[in-house]
């Protein structure tokens, strides 16, 4: 079932048999594990996507269903109600008996009636800006902590690590008051500045830079290159995997940030990001969640990130790391 493209060279007689067996077993086990795992990881998404195309009663009918049985059926019917025409939805009990899959865009329509395009723009703009600032600031700081000797190096790292342990919720109010005093509430800078460097990112980059062999930089030092040059010309280019990881973490973290940004722009709906908008939708419909709109919103929130991740994930593998270090 699978083609094996293992290394052809078998070095010792003793290992030959073992290797052959391993080359068959490992992929079989590996594929099995990965496929089961992939299914578990994917299921909630398939479910979300398929249900986002159902109408409300179909989503709520029990037992729950994956696509397409039992389906959304005919969700709407026009009924005459005291002379005026109105749209009625099928009772849940009816829909579960039908067996046709009849997708509807109700949820998407409903969510686009909100300020969705504006929220998508805000989220993308803020996330991108924060990502670039973090790539720069975090890698600079991480490099200093990993490589440069100066008094207080360890103390500062320890300090950064400790700050990471402070529960974020408790900082919401002091930070809000601080930003208010700075006159930044309800503005893009409020969404960007506090997040433009991350403790996590500094920690991440430090750990990565530490794992890079020192020889390369030492060679460059001998050639008389300055620290800044070495960092930008030598270290960063070979750190693509780490930078890609940081970029993805930062972008995705900011894209989904909820509590951290909640207070900063909550009174200006045109500055909201997607999580704020979705949370508003959740509140808007009271305890009765408008599932179809919510699920449609979830799909719109998640899809761009999935595409971006798929585009960039290859840099983890095919990045240019260490080409100059072998041999």
């Amino acid at each position, binding site marked *: 079932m699978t083609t094996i493209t293992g290394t052809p060279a078998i070095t010792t007689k003793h290992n030959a048999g073992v290797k052959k067996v391993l080359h068959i077993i490992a992929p079989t086990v590996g594929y099995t594990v990965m496929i089961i795992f992939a299914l578990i990881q994917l299921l909630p998404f398939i479910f979300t996507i398929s249900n986002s195309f159902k109408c409300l009663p179909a989503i*709520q009918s029990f037992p729950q269903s994956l696509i397409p049985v039992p389906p959304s059926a005919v969700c709407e019917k026009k009924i005459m109600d005291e002379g005026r025409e109105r749209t009625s939805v099928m009772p849940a009990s009816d829909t579960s008996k039908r067996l046709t899959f009849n997708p509807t865009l109700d949820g998407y329509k409903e969510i686009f009636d909100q300020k969705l395009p504006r929220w998508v723009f805000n989220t993308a703009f803020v996330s991108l800006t924060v990502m670039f600032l973090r790539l720069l600031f975090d890698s600079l700081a991480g490099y200093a902590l990993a490589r440069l000797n100066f008094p207080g190096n360890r103390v500062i790292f320890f300090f950064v690590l400790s700050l990471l342990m402070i529960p974020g919720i408790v900082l919401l109010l002091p930070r809000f*008051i601080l930003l208010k005093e700075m006159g930044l509430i309800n503005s893009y800078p409020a969404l960007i500045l506090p997040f433009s460097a991350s403790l996590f990112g500094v920690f991440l980059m430090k750990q990565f830079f530490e794992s890079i062999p020192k020889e390369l930089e030492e060679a460059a030092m001998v050639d008389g290159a300055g620290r800044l040059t070495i960092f930008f010309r030598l270290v960063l280019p070979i750190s693509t995997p780490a930078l890609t990881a940081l970029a993805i973490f930062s972008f995705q973290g900011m894209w989904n940030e909820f509590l951290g940004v*909640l*207070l900063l722009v909550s009174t200006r709906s045109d500055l909201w990001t997607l999580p704020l908008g979705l949370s508003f939708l959740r509140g808007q419909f009271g305890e009765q969640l408008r599932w179809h709109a919510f699920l449609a919103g979830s799909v719109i929130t998640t899809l761009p990130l999935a595409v971006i991740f798929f585009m960039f994930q290859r840099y983890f593998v095919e990045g240019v790391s260490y080409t100059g270090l072998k041999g």
Partner: protein
Amino acid sequence: MKRSLVLVLVLTLTLAVFARTPSSHAQDKVTIQLMGWSSSDAENAALQSMVDAFEEANPNIAVDLQLVPEFDTTLQAAFASGDAPNVFYVDSSKLPDLVDAGVIAAGDDQIVDQDDIYPSLLDVFTIDDTLYCAPKDFSTLTLQYNKDLFDAAGVDYPTSDWTWDDLAAAAEALTEGDVVGLVVPAELPRWLPFLYQAGGSILSEDGTEVTFDSEETAAALDFYVGLVTDGFAAPPSAIDSGWGGEALGKQRAAMAMEGNWIIGAMEENYPDVNYGIAELPAGPAGKATMAFTVCYGVAADNDHPEESWALANFLTGKDGALMVAEAGFGVMPARLSAADTWLQVHGEDFQPFVTGADYSHRWVLPIGFGDFTDTFNNDLKEAMAGNLTTEDIIADSVDVANEILGQ
């Protein structure tokens, strides 16, 4: 890397352009901020049209309507930073905190036509003989029942003469297969009507003594929890629902005890469910229900108190109350003069909601009693699961209540 640096620069500049907040053009125009949470689309639209009407009537005042996510947190942060909205929603349970913090203005001398407001609602927003704000609207708890399921089981519809025994008997008769007779949330405010129907109370009249450890409390708990342990009632989560209305709509429960908010939800999501409304049953000590209400508070630290009160009075006054009634999204206007209009819009079937106002109790506990509610809710849930007894609930709750009062 250079390219990304340039990009960062460009982005930062763009940001600077975007960051400029629009300055207000007219200097003589006063802007009032009104902060609230978002309800249904219909309710939001109704509020917006009321605000529009106010602006039209008061050309020198502009209203900045802010409907926010996570309202409680947002409002609290606004107060703490010393920059509160001029007018804001206040849930009755939150009022003691705001009064204690000194951030809400007294409204005794400001609220118009006070004798037209339901006395029980004025009472909700009165602390230590000071009236703080005028109610925006209110809801009472009633009994909703699925007529089709009643017909199928051959049970007579609930009437205003129903007692606990009738409710229990009907719940038993209606429980069949996936359907339970009654959906009962494991929450203090939903159980409180039964405590009051039994003649019990949490605190003495003056609020200095815990009166919770009583036979009445035990009777009310035994009845409420007993329905669940006997299998004739269930909390919403046990029947795949987020709340009682959903259980009624999905036909997983034959009866629910919700407030006015169920009207809009049923119409919007389950228009084909044929349901009726009755008063809550009477207990050993007669009838009782709960009133849930929200008012428009005015900030104590306020640059424009006059305009703020003008807005609050417009929204809660006789005209505002009529607009609430006519909007037809379920909640009732807090003014006696608008009750008939509300009934006309919704229909006579909804009379029990209005009747409930006559014998409703307020949902407000002294400051610090959030812990009491919390302890009670936990124990009630455990008791419904069969892990705790009535005595356990009472003992734990009384301990906490005494500790709070002792401080």
